[in-house]
């Protein structure tokens, strides 16, 4: 046997994964024509993550790779999640508290806030 490195996968198995990916791709498009309200986006993203996981695990051989490579793969997703979550935590919460445009508006905001705490109208 030649001393090739890395995991050799059968053509049959690759074909199975490919058929599964095509079915999921058609499912994504098909589900877009069904009214699920806000859940259309959720379903589309769940299918996308499933497809990406299939590609990473089997086409990219992560299933048979050393732990170190899997950690890098997961870490990439984690960094992306941090990037999106922390950015959204800024943008989505803007306007919850009026941004001080000047020291006077800060003063007014603080006075109103204290007044509301003390029950003054």
């Amino acid at each position, binding site marked *: 046997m*030649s*001393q*090739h*490195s*890395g995991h*050799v*996968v059968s*053509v049959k198995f*690759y*074909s199975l*994964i*490919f058929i599964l*990916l*095509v079915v999921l*791709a*058609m499912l*994504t*498009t098909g589900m*877009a*024509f*069904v*009214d*699920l309200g806000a859940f*259309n*986006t959720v379903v*589309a*993203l769940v*299918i*996308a993550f499933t*497809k*990406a996981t299939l*590609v*990473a695990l*089997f*086409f*990219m051989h992560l299933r048979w*790779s*050393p732990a*170190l*490579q899997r950690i*890098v*793969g997961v*870490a*990439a*997703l984690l*960094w*992306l999640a941090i*990037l*999106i979550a922390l*950015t*959204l935590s800024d*943008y*989505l919460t803007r306007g919850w508290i009026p941004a001080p445009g000047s020291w006077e508006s800060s003063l007014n905001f603080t006075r109103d806030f204290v007044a509301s705490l003390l029950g003054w109208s």
Partner: protein
Amino acid sequence: MADSHAALAEQFDDVEQQHDAASLGMWLFLATEVMFFGGLFASYTIFRSRYDLAFIEGSHHLNVTLGSINTVILLASSFTMALAVRSAQLGRRRTLIVFLLATIVLGLAFLGIKLSGEYYRDWIEGTVPGLHWSYQSPRAPQVELFMCFYFFMTALHATHMIVGFGIMAVLIIMAARGQISAERCNPVEMAGLYWHFVDIIWIFLFPLLYLVGGRY
């Protein structure tokens, strides 16, 4: 003097260690690529949360049929790439070249459909932001923003594909010269990782750009 195409470089203990080192390096590079595209995905998320209706309007302007066909074509190119890697691992030079060529042809079909069926039509209809924009709608400025995301993200993805064509062309030349063998197939495997990553990017781009707000 050692053969420059020897199976084992002298800094490694064995072929397996060499293979793991190359794979780890490639995965680290792909992690930086995730962050490269990540900035676009993050800003897309923010603006979609702000201008939801305009994003739906812009998305409905895109051609779902061509987008879906391209998704399947790109998945097929990933499949032929996986088979190319397998051929290299088994030292089958002829099938390796055939599968690499098939991957390039499928990739070119993807770009051909994108250019002729989508980008060109956008140009005709005046929905190319900044260059040729004549779209009329109460939400036109926000739709223009969506189209900016569409063009930047798909063009960056297409650029990665074109880089992939170059890599595969080099691999075909290497294979034809007999520089790829079962003992020395790392270059093909690393190119495979890259191509599958480009496929994964499209797997996310397709629903995020073409399927906003459903099509019912």
